[in-house]
């Protein structure tokens, strides 16, 4: 113990010890991975993001895909059964075709059919 104290008290040894401690501190700080600086663990964040991605795929994307399928079935049902474009066009063509008929009805209804010849009957008519 005495030998050790006397050894430490030597200026050269003290300098070497202090220098070694400084080097140790600096090296400890310097070799710390960058992602761990300031307490942020990027590996943990990446792992969390992967977990979120996986969860989004299963818990969100899967129901959305199912909804999309149902919506597509609904669209198909509407296009093929409820509102087929052919039926819409056919109904519109029919309505257009009836325009002439209804005009004809109006003309027949407004026809001048008077035929009296004498003034008083004409007035009465």
């Amino acid at each position, binding site marked *: 113990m005495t030998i050790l104290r006397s050894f430490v008290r030597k200026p050269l040894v003290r300098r070497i010890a202090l220098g070694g401690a400084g080097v140790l*501190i600096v090296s400890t700080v310097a070799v710390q991975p960058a992602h761990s600086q300031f307490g942020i663990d990027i590996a943990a964040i990446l792992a*969390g993001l992967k977990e*979120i991605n996986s969860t989004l795929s299963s818990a969100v994307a899967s129901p959305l895909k199912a909804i999309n399928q*149902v919506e597509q079935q609904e669209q198909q049902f509407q296009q093929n059964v409820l509102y087929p474009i052919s*039926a819409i066009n*056919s109904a519109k063509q029919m309505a257009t075709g009836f325009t002439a008929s209804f005009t004809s*009805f109006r003309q027949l209804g407004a026809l001048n059919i008077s035929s009296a010849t*004498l003034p008083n009957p004409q007035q009465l008519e």
Partner: protein
Amino acid sequence: MKAKAMSLGASMLVMALLLFPTGAYAQFGGIFSAILSTITGPIGGALTDINQIRSSILKTEQQALWPVRLITQAQNYISTIKASYRGWMNQVYTLPVNSANLQMSKSLESAFLSGQIGQVGTFAQSYTSTYGVQPASGAAPQLNLQMMDIEDAVAKDATVQSMAADQATTKMLQTAQRIEDEAQTTAPGTAAMVAAEARTAELASIAMQHKLLAYQLREAAIQLGHRGSILKQSTSNTQNLNQQILNHLGGGQ
């Protein structure tokens, strides 16, 4: 010595701080856990519910509201109805009802049964040929001339009106058949359009019926007027005759 001990202690403390794990990982873990919980719970659960509801709606539409089987069945029903009655009804509509024998009356009948308003000229000529021309002014009392004129006019007007109605009826039947054809292929979503056209045609048909009914009323009124006029003439003639008898008997004034 003291400074050396302090520097050594400080060095150890810095090393300990840098080497031992910090609380950062646990902090992010909590955030991720909350996000995952939100995704799987409120978001994922809501999406699943939405999917179930949409599926249920689609199922209701396909099985309860608009089953394809029933739509096809209704369309087939229309086809059956058309096949069973349209041809027969068309025969009824075009059934010949003419029965006149003489040339003039046959011509008149042919004109007013033509169902063509373009035949009005022919009809007017045939009417005159069949029922005679209006006497010239002075050939008969003015009252009689007027009665003849208005009654001819009413007869001709009503007949022309009926010809127009026949023509409209032909068009209306074509319209009805077109609507029926359309109903055979229409879809639930376009049925309202077809129904609107049918209702429009129905209104036009009712309007034409009203015109004919109005003309029937006018004819009845003219007949009443004719009857009243004859009574008035008869009364006037009787008064004239009485006056002449009184004159002959010397009691007249």
